[in-house]
């Protein structure tokens, strides 16, 4: 005959501790979420007054359309854009000469815009956004 073991081991975790466990789990995930860094790209855009002062210079002009980009009025394929921009900015040493005026169509998507402006900045250009002026006229 087999002898039965006298002692029974406790196999259930104590239910009183579940609240504390949940509390510590939440603290852990909150801390994890709050320290998660965001990634991105810095962009320096000159303030309006500075742009006015530099308007006299002849700047490179980039037009961004829905699917293409133009440099000084000429359509440039996206795979050649960076190289063309580098070539144009190569001999320009002063900041005022490196200003690239960016004009975008109203329907240009942000994804396309960020890709083009990234290439301009990587080539050493300083971006200036040119927008259509909206003027309100009050009629009495």
């Amino acid at each position, binding site marked *: 005959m087999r002898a039965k073991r006298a002692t029974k081991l406790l196999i259930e975790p104590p239910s009183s501790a579940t609240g504390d466990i949940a509390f510590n789990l939440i603290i852990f995930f909150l801390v994890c979420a709050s320290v998660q860094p965001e990634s991105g790209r810095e*962009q320096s855009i*000159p*303030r309006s007054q500075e742009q006015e002062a530099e308007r006299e210079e002849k700047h490179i002009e980039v037009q961004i359309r829905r699917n293409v980009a133009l440099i000084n009025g000429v359509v440039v394929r996206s795979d050649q854009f960076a190289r063309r921009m580098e070539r144009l900015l190569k001999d320009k040493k002063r900041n005022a000469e490196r200003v690239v005026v960016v004009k975008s*169509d109203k329907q240009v998507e942000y994804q396309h815009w960020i890709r083009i402006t990234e290439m301009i900045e990587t080539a050493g250009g300083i971006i200036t956004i040119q927008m259509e002026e909206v003027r309100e006229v009050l009629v009495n």
Partner: protein
Amino acid sequence: MKIQRKTARADIPSLCMGDIAFNLLIFFVILARAQDESHLQWQPAHASDVQNTGHSKVSVLIDKDEKVYLNGQPVGIMQLASRIEAILLDSPQGERTVLLKVHRESKAIIFEPVIEAVSEAGGSLFHIVEKQNES
């Protein structure tokens, strides 16, 4: 003979402490969520070269519906520059970062005036984008 009154014990059961703390935490988490941007829907654009951002007091978001939010609160484009200026006040150059979170399909007619407003307020623009996979 004086009959002694029975004294009842009024201790808070220590067993409930964990649950009380848990519920308090849930309450504060929900309160905090109402103030941040995690409830707003947007998808970041992709870029090949990205850096990690530091601390910033100002965050401007354009969501899927092309609505503009300043630190999680809806704002009109006309008031954006003055509101950013009010938050940045006299912050020194390194602390004037403005995080710009734009939904990747937003149109230039919406995001360009926002960029202009940040520039007008003297903020240092930081586009929040995702690193593009090389594959």
